[in-house]
């Protein structure tokens, strides 16, 4: 294994160039149709935070699942303190002192804080019953040691905010005397203040000599808290070393493996008159006073942080949720849509963000997925015309360069990227005037990403108008004609994508003054 050579004096006193507490080597894992991990390696050192960096779909979550015994690797070795171990089940990770804190904590909402901390290893009385008073006392001690004495061990977890839930999760890690702590995007749902508190906690864990894996998409956080980095790209480990002395640019280069602006198709947009107008659209809780116009032949990017209300807004436009106020009109005609069926009929297609839950119907073959919203056109008096269904499916899937062995194949047997192509084909088959793509390349491989981007460019060239919700800045900057930035349910800015830079967008989305 290669390590970047580090001069000893760069290191803090207590972090000797020790041997790794936890190391994975040569780990591979395949799923039907996709190789998620290819001979990757990762080492965690006691008292150090290692940041695992990579784009969506790089294989980070798969690795975490292997580290916590949920997935079994196809090959490779796992060692703790130099000794080979196997993690055949979630319980074995627990036994080896591996504890994970997930993006949305996987604790038990209806149990108390103390129960959550001690679940599975609660103190017992002589009779084998749970020693409640001792459990409470111990829980309080654990929380106090972490500086979280404001949490009452008797509170039901449901009543705590996400930041405090993280604290409980860390408390649980402390209580099982975990030596390896995995944090999978713990800051995703936290406020700035809560993130600071979490960092204090991570410092505390470091001081306790824990080996910590920290996964985040945010560079400022990584540089703020991590000591080492490991970069994954498309299921491979492409670099690792100490963060000090490594620039952000170097890491970005490792992540994407090529200059970012080259992967987007060149476009010569001819933008026409306004097509879709949304005016003062409001929802009781999710978004407020939204007004914008989408012009013919335009790609309008929607950028914002998670929770900015973008998906909720798009689902309202798609007729999935009711609004409290405001109007939507297409081609000057107001749409009074009460369901997705009405919106589809009006000419608006919404490709949802959660592909597995909202997009594909797993269990049905590809062609039936594609024809589902267009059944009126592939049937006569309600009777299906199989030939025209196949024809419809073929026309759109082949255009998207779908990789499938036949159109009668269950859509569930396809890789994520190809499933996404089926979902997009399904919506294009409705012959929409406006297509809303919600995180169209989330969690799909680079090749499929390029295919989707290329296809978007073709679509607008043919006169379709596209709304693209994306959290990936390169995608927003690479594809959009104009960019709408949302924050906390409101539009904070609409800008032409000329000379626009990532920094500006991030500042707008986060509400930081320039």
């Amino acid at each position, binding site marked *: 294994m290669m390590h970047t050579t580090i001069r000893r004096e760069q290191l803090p006193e207590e972090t000797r160039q020790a041997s790794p507490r936890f190391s994975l080597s040569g780990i591979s894992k395949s799923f039907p*149709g996709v190789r998620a991990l290819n001979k990757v390696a990762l080492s965690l050192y006691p008292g150090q935070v290692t940041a695992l960096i990579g784009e969506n779909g790089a294989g980070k979550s798969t690795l975490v699942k292997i580290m916590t015994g949920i997935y079994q690797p196809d090959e490779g070795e796992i060692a703790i303190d130099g000794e080979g171990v196997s993690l055949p089940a979630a319980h074995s990770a627990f036994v080896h002192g591996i504890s994970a804190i997930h993006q949305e904590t996987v604790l038990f909402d209806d149990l108390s804080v103390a129960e959550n901390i001690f679940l599975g290893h609660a103190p017992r009385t002589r009779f084998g019953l749970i020693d409640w008073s001792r459990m409470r006392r111990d829980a309080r001690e654990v929380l106090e040691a972490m500086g979280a004495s404001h949490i009452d061990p008797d509170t039901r977890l449901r009543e705590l905010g996400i930041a405090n839930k993280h604290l409980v999760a860390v408390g649980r890690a402390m209580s099982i005397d975990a030596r390896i702590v995995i944090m999978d995007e713990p800051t995703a749902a936290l406020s700035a203040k809560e993130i600071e508190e979490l960092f204090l906690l991570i410092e505390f864990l470091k001081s306790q000599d824990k080996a910590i894996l920290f996964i985040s998409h945010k560079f400022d956080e990584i540089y703020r808290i991590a000591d080492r980095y490991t970069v994954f790209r498309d299921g491979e480990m492409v670099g690792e070393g100490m963060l000090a002395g490594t620039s952000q640019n170097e890491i970005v280069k490792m992540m994407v493996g090529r200059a970012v602006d080259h992967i987007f198709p060149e476009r010569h947009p001819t933008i026409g008159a306004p097509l879709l107008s949304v005016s003062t659209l409001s929802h009781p809780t999710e978004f407020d006073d939204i007004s914008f116009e989408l012009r013919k032949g335009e790609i309008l990017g929607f950028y914002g942080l998670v929770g900015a209300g973008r998906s909720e807004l798009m689902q309202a436009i*798609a007729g*999935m949720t009711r609004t409290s106020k405001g109007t939507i009109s297409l081609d000057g005609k107001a749409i009074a849509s009460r*369901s*997705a*069926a009405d*919106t*589809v*009929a009006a000419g608006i297609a*919404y490709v*949802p963000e959660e592909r597995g*839950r*909202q*997009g*594909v*119907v*797993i*269990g*049905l073959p590809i*062609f*039936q997925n594609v*024809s*589902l*919203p267009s*059944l*009126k056109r*592939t*049937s006569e008096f*309600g*009777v*299906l015309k199989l030939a025209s269904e*196949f024809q419809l499916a*073929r026309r759109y*899937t*082949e*255009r998207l*360069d*779908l*990789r*499938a*062995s*036949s*159109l*009668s*194949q269950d859509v569930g047997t396809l890789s994520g990227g190809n499933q996404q192509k089926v979902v997009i084909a*399904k919506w294009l088959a409705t012959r929409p005037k406006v297509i809303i793509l919600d995180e169209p390349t989330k969690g799909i491989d680079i090749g499929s990403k390029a295919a989707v981007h290329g296809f978007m460019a073709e679509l607008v060239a043919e006169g379709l108008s596209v709304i693209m919700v994306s959290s990936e800045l390169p995608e927003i900057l690479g594809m959009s004609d104009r960019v709408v930035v949302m924050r906390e349910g409101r539009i904070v800015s609409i800008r032409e994508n000329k000379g626009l830079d990532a920094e500006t967008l991030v500042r707008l989305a986060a509400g930081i003054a320039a």
Partner: protein
Amino acid sequence: MSTTELAHNRHIPDRLDNPLRSALFSWETLLILVAVAIFALNSLASPYFLNAWSLSDLTFNFVEKGLIALAMALLIIAGEIDLSVAAIIALSSTIMGMAVQAGVDTPGLVLIGLGVGLACGAFNGLLVTKLGLPSIVVTIGTMSLFRGIAYIILGDQAYRGYPASFAFFGQGYVWWVISFEIVLFVIMALLFWFLLHRTSFGRMVFAIGNNPVAATFSGVRVERIKFILFCLTGLMAGVASVLLTSRLGSTRPSIAQGYELEVITMVVLGGVSILGGSGSIAGVVLAAIIMGLVTFGLGLLNVPGIVMSIFIGLLLITVIALPILWRRLRERQGA
């Protein structure tokens, strides 16, 4: 999938499997073999079995339940269930009995029988789709409710005195040994086969059963279709009620007791996934015939009713487990 990278936009075939080959290894083929085996066993076990009239009598064992199973199959494929069908038969039969006392003649009785079934189904459907309640709970409730009403109306009495012309539905023959019931069953089976496998309605039923959220996003009116399916199931229970009441010539509140389990056993034995999303009408029809053969065969052998009930229970458990084992086996072969 092959790894040969062809040029862009390569052709994707409609299907790979030879349809004949996949039909040969289907659940339905297995059911046919089972049916033939039981048929053979029956003929060996009893000298009275292989006889046109015996075989005709046999059909009365499954037609009423089979008719409900046709609609129930669609409901279960869509991810819902209706446990109140037997109680609907009882309530529908009771109201028909009341109508007889009031002097209503055969056409009116049939309308009432079907109408009560439809109304009960609509009631189930409203509770499930409008209030968002789980159908298993709703229909356990209405199962008690509908039969309870029948008991209140009838007590330990029975309604008799159905008009002579009413007897045709359950006792009449269209030609020689071909009963009205079996003719109706064949017609209904064809109609339901067409509805499920050849219409966009049927396609949406499958979509809902596999992923209701994605179906909603695709513009499928999920709640409306579920409501229609509950109505249809209630209506078929109404049809069964007319047939059964006509066949027995009387109504007691305990009529059709336990039918719901046999109906669901038929559906599941027919290869419909109890979790929703897959199944076929052909399978359900075959399962109905198998159930008829088995109960008739046991009857010929003078097996007491309680043993039959144990047998139905075991069959239900087995057929829920079997398709899962069968699928695993096929997956292992496919992998």
